[in-house]
């Protein structure tokens, strides 16, 4: 059962996405801000991270940079969840070290496709 770390400050988004992922059979851990996200990445060692970009304390880009800078967590694939209208945010996300991105609102089948692709790549490597 792959473990996904969901870093999302909006309570409803967190609740929704986590429950849908759990229904799809994932083990979900959650963080509410960038700093927590970085900590949990190190302690819970998830198989994949879903990272919201606009987060309090430290934002998603910075959190991703730190995760990718740490030996213990740099191999964990990160999918950035970016707001629809923020032009250039995808590029920023990839610059920060994200492996893929998806736009909000979440289209679950599309997101699941990306999650599966990254997880398979991870297990194949």
């Amino acid at each position, binding site marked *: 059962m792959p473990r996904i770390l969901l870093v999302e400050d*909006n309570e*409803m*988004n967190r609740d*929704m*996405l986590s*429950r*849908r992922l759990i*229904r799809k059979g994932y083990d979900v851990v959650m963080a509410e801000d960038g700093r927590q996200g970085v900590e949990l990445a190190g302690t819970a060692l998830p198989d994949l991270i879903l990272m919201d970009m*606009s987060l309090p*304390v*430290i*934002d998603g*880009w*910075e959190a991703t940079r730190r995760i990718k800078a740490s030996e213990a967590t740099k191999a964990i694939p990160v999918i950035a969840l970016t*707001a*629809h*209208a923020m*032009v*250039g945010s995808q590029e920023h996300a990839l610059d920060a070290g994200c492996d893929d991105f998806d736009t*909000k*609102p*979440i289209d*679950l089948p599309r997101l699941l496709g990306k999650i599966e692709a990254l997880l398979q790549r991870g297990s194949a490597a």
Partner: protein
Amino acid sequence: MVEALAAAGLAPGGLGLPWHIAIDLAVIASVLAAGFLAVQVADTRSGQRIAASLAELSRREAELRATLENMQQGVAMYDADYRLVTWNRQFREYLDLPDEFLEGRRTFADYIRYLAERGEFGKISDIEALVAQRLEPLAREHWLERTRPDGTILEIYRNPIPTGGFIAIYTDVTARRQAEGLLRDEEERFRAIDRAAPIAVVIANAKDQRVRHVNPYFVEFFGLQEAHQIDGLDDYTVRRMAALSLLERPLAEVFPDPAQGQELAALLARGKTGRMDQELRFVRPDGKELWVAASLEQLEFRGEPAVIACLSDITDRKRAEVELTRAMQAAEAANRVKSDFLANMSHELRTPLNAIIGYSQMLQEQAADDGQDDYLADLAKIERAGAHLLQLINDILDLSKIEAGRMSVFIEQVSIPALVGEVQSIIEPLAAKNGNRFVVDCPPDIGSIDSDVTKLKQSLLNLLSNASKFTNNGTVQLAVSRAGSDADARAGSDADSQGGASADAQISFHVTDTGIGMTAEQMDRLFQAFAQADSSTTRRFGGTGLGLAITRHFARMLGGDVSVTSEPGIGSTFTLVVPVHDRSSPPPAEAAGEPKRTISGDAAGALTVLVVDDDEAVHDVVGAMLGRDGYRVLHARSGPEAMTLAREQRPDAITLDVMMPQMDGWTVLSSLKADAELRDIPVVIVTMLNDRAIALSLGADAFLSKPIDWAQLSAVLKQCSRHHAESILVVDDDPEMRDMTRRMLERMGITVHEAADGAAALAWLEANPRPSIILLDLMMPEVDGFEVLDRLRQSDEWSNIPVLVATAKAFSADELAQLQRSTEKIISKGATLGVDLRTAIREMLQRTQAIVGG
């Protein structure tokens, strides 16, 4: 002949008659003289001679008769009995007299009676009274003028002749009287206009530029009547008197505003005519502002070349223009605020909407898993409604961003086949929903273009989803073609399809449907925001009505456009054209969050030093030395001159002598330091006195004693101007605050870099050499000031950059302690921020210099 003339008392000029009448009289006199001659001849000559004389007489009479008949005037002569004896054709015609009357040896009384009965004098009740009245003046020379029933005006002159009788001469003066009437009309009209028209008129001689005429309104226009005001005089008279007083004055002097007077005079002197483009602003003696439009024309006045200027008051229009501009700016600002608000609000709107869509999707999944199919349809409706609302919000967001000028374009290489493939995969299911066939016609070798892929894709999706929506069981086609002069070049080089592309090459996307089509009227409004072809369309077909407006905006941002042809019932074709090479407008200069580097005035060039000394020798020496070292030197010989130059030129440093006449160095120094704009200019006191303490207490930045040690002065100036080498990174999310700070620091000669938030600041630090100081705001979105401090402390490279925190936040004791460990100084954003900031930065820069120097 001459005697005869004299005898007849008809010598020309002798009567003071008008010349034309005098000449005519001379003719008549000669007729009379001939008569006397005939009588004399008859008395003294023999028969033979009489016969000859009679022949001569007959000839002369014929000549005289011919003369009489050809005169322009009517002539009638009456004998001593006042019987009509001689007349000419003109007389007969003027008065329309039948031959029977003329031949009947009628008297003048008969003549009057005849005319009166004929109605020549209008309705006359007592004809005999009229006759008496006309007979009365015949014994003396007299004039009269009367209008005949047919409207002709006759001037009648009657004069007794020595033989008894009198002569009457009739002149038709109708034309002359009419001309005089016209002239009089014209004069009255002119006088009325002169008095009433609100146009100031001045006529000036073109050569001597002196005033030949001004109208009374000119005086009122410029408020010049004051000096001519006399009790009891009406306004018009006062103005006319004032106008008269301006005659023969030089043109430039008659205007209340000498500068504008000169300008107008110069324009007149140039002989430029016609309506002037520029409008002149005058200030009247009473202080009122007056905007004037002038119309100039060359003319001849009193036989000399002159220029007339007609000036009209356009002050109200001018004020209205100013008001209008102000109102427009306010409206634009309000519109921007609205757009900003919408852009921000849209974000807020999307968050709850995402929850609605998300939870409805989740419940659908759950219901499907649990076999509760009853709920599925309703949950799908919630999701669809949410999705529609989201689309609306996204469109409004796009549009408001476009309107607020915050929509930027990201140009990159876009592969057309790849783009078309992606679009196809999205549109195919949409087209299929309405039973449509989706056909794509795109040459596989069409190549790529420089464009913004997101906007291009969104535009194509808009056009294609519209086509799919408005077409049922038909065909939706996307055809792509390349146009422009590189089409041939492309055919010849398949390796690099853009190799031969010319600047005007274009790609056209044609979206054709077999749907309901549109009328011309509907097409007109098609691309306007919030104007779907028919408002019921929104209800029938859904959609926001914004898609096409956005598409057109996008197309134009990309340097292209979108157009449409359509026929109701047959279908529509939308054509999106974009250039192959980027011709989009450059993105806005200041993208939010991007650090901006600004170099202050002369920082890049020579430094300016103002040398203030009353001793010319000092100017020579110091000027030469400073010039040699690459400084730009300004010279002031007195205190007031120094103040003026300092204000105008804002030098980078000032060297100031103390002992000067009029205004001494201490006064200059105090004035400089008391002026908020000038107090930051470093001042070096250069004096023979040993007054270092006074100098420094008054705020001098350095003190040197004369004679000047060049090395010392050079070192001091370098020290003073060193701030130029200093740079400060200003991190604040408030653009006004950044701007205010930047300008203040630049005045101190410091180079300023800006970052709009913590993330931008960190990014800037990574990409640039370290600044001398970081000026940091704490409350910022995303990465706040605390986080930046955190990162700086952790970094080896940045940990020792002094940080100055400027904040409006109130701190807890813990926060304060934490801040004090990691920052150099904390100042609060209050009323004295400017002063506090300047002082703090000075201190910090001096300390860093001390460290660097030491």
